């Protein structure tokens, strides 16, 4: 009786150990390649406006965010650093292949990381998933211009983490 109990325990432990090793190996593989990348830097220009209204917003949809599924359900957050920010910048995930895009996020200097894409399913294949980043830059006339106040330079950071 005692011997049978011991063998069973040993088998369970060995199975768990094997699973743990497999998970760690898989995790190490994921470290080897970037889990999330942004395709490039952009400059957005507001050059015209409406009398009695607002400057015309600039929209950019040229940037792709690529990310990989993980071993657990995960999400992507977004944050920005832009000291001395003058103007408004918003971002929206469109054409999301995996996960659920959040509503448009207003990027404000020093903001806490905000959910951008949630419910990214667990990994079933190693291929990268993508979405298009739709940036919208806007301003009011009262907010001035870059010649007098300088450009807004945002370092926008996307982070993928377990949900």
């Amino acid at each position, binding site marked *: 009786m005692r011997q049978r109990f011991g063998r069973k325990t040993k088998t369970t*432990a060995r199975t768990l150990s094997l699973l743990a090793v497999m998970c*760690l190996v898989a995790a190490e593989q994921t470290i080897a390649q970037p889990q999330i990348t942004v395709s490039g830097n952009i400059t*957005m220009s507001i*050059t*015209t406006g409406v*009398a*009695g209204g607002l400057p015309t917003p600039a929209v950019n949809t040229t940037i792709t965010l690529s990310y990989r599924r993980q071993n657990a359900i995960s999400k992507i957050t977004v944050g920005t650093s832009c000291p001395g920010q003058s103007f408004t910048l918003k971002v929206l995930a469109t054409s999301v292949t995996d996960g659920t895009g959040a509503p448009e996020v207003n990027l404000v200097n020093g903001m806490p990381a905000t959910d951008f894409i949630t419910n990214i399913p667990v990994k079933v294949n190693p291929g990268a998933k993508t979405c298009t980043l739709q940036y919208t830059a806007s301003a009011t006339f009262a907010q001035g211009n870059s010649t007098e106040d300088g450009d807004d330079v945002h370092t926008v950071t*996307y982070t993928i983490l377990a949900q």
Partner: protein
Amino acid sequence: MRPKKVSVLESLRLLGYIHSLFNHHFPTPNRGLHKLRTFRRFFVASLALGCAAKGQTYGSGSHTVTVQVSQVTVVQVSSGTVNLTISGASAVAGQNSMTVTDLSTSFLWGTNVSQRKVTVQTNLASPIFTLKLLAVSPTQGTAGPEVTLSTIAQDFLTNIAKSSGSTQLRYTGVALASQGTGSDAHTITYTVTVQ
């Protein structure tokens, strides 16, 4: 950002140690109990690792987005044409001066450049009659006094700063009986300029 993970090497050492515990032959009759305790420890450790995975960061990526706003100044007049007609109806017996007023149009602007004002002028160098203009109830800035339009730019609206807004335009045509009849066609230019 570097993911928060236990290295594979460290993990394998830990697992090797656990395996060695299971494979060790204990001389006491409590060998099964010892294995059970060891398994319990392993299970608790697994749970702890599982909890640590919650909120685990897998990676991050950044890029730069630069927002440039040009110096933008735009103006608009609500209607292209204003007609002022002085007829017998506006004449008063015994008075030389006859006037007519129009409030049907508005001026709109937007500028993101500091220290700005609006001036006004006409292209008609020698009009027969007099044409006056006043900004009525501007939403931003300070209305200047009523101006008699000439080819020289005159202040119409001051202190608009960086703003957008509108004001009603009050045109007043003045004719003297002694000036007779005729018509003047003005092209009026509004300019946002440095104050």
